[in-house]
């Protein structure tokens, strides 16, 4: 168990850093989704299944969706300016 906990903490750390260092917003959202899934796994491994439920919906679905929709809106605006 302790190995799994250490491994998932390491993965979350690496994924979080990767999200921060990704500069293209679209790629960043994909990284963020993956990061959300890793966080879900982390909560599950640390025996907080209820927090894992919230995290999988909010972190891996709703938040990326909102960013994606915002990006789509911005792109539509940009195209109309040209």
């Amino acid at each position, binding site marked *: 168990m302790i190995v799994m906990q250490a491994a998932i903490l390491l993965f979350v750390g690496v994924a979080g850093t990767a999200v921060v260092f990704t500069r293209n917003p679209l790629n960043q959202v994909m990284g963020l989704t993956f990061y959300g899934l890793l966080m879900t796994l982390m909560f599950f491994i640390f025996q907080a299944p209820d927090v894992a439920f919230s995290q999988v919906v909010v972190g891996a679905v*709703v938040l990326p969706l909102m960013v994606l*929709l915002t990006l*789509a809106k911005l792109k539509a605006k940009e195209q109309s300016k040209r």
Partner: protein
Amino acid sequence: MNHRARTTLFIFGGLGFLCFYIWGLHGLPGFGHYPGPYGDILNSLSVYQRHATDVITAVNFDYRGFDTLGEEFILFTSVMGANLLLRKQKDDREELPPRDEAADRVVPPTSDAVRVTGLALVLPIVVFGLYTISHGQLTPGGGFQGGVILASMPLIIYLCGDYEAFEKVTSHVLSEIAEAIGAGGYAITGLIAFAFGLPYLTNFIPLGETGDVLSSGTIFVISVLTGIEVAAGLVVLMISFFRQALVYRKSGEESGGQQ
């Protein structure tokens, strides 16, 4: 400030932070060794005091119910704020049918496998969300967790259908009303305790039998109200984002789908 000066400043600041960080880490208790008394006390008391077997929900909705009320209103306020920012403005016109694809790209239709899997998931998700909300005082879960699970149902319908299908299963007005009932109901449940001469948010309903769904008094009631508020709030948020991104166009703005 040029690049070199910024880097120098960062290195000095970072070194200082590192020193305090390592110093701070030294004071931490060992991994998995919980030092405080509160968790242990509540673990041994909550079943007797509140007839709740999930201590976390008992803490959230009873022992520190007032804090959770504040958290719930943070959610309520942020949803309302996003709703206000993303409202339909004067020079917005609605473009129908809404297109959720880029103009310069041919998007393949959703595959049958995704549609069948998604549709098969819809009912189990609703049941699981309701279960998580209503059994918050017995097993891990509660209003917040069940609420977000419920709110993912329209999203799955969007994933295996299109925006029109999403719009058919959601209602902006009803969701707003439900959100208000959930948030207001929590505050009013706390107020009812005054009528019994008890402090705000005191658990005034008979606690019932431990292990029963309808047990642990106001914890169950507040959990259900929170579930309604969270699910409806997230749906309101999603509707505003979808409308703004897919339906509303400024006059003169090129529509999403047509060339």
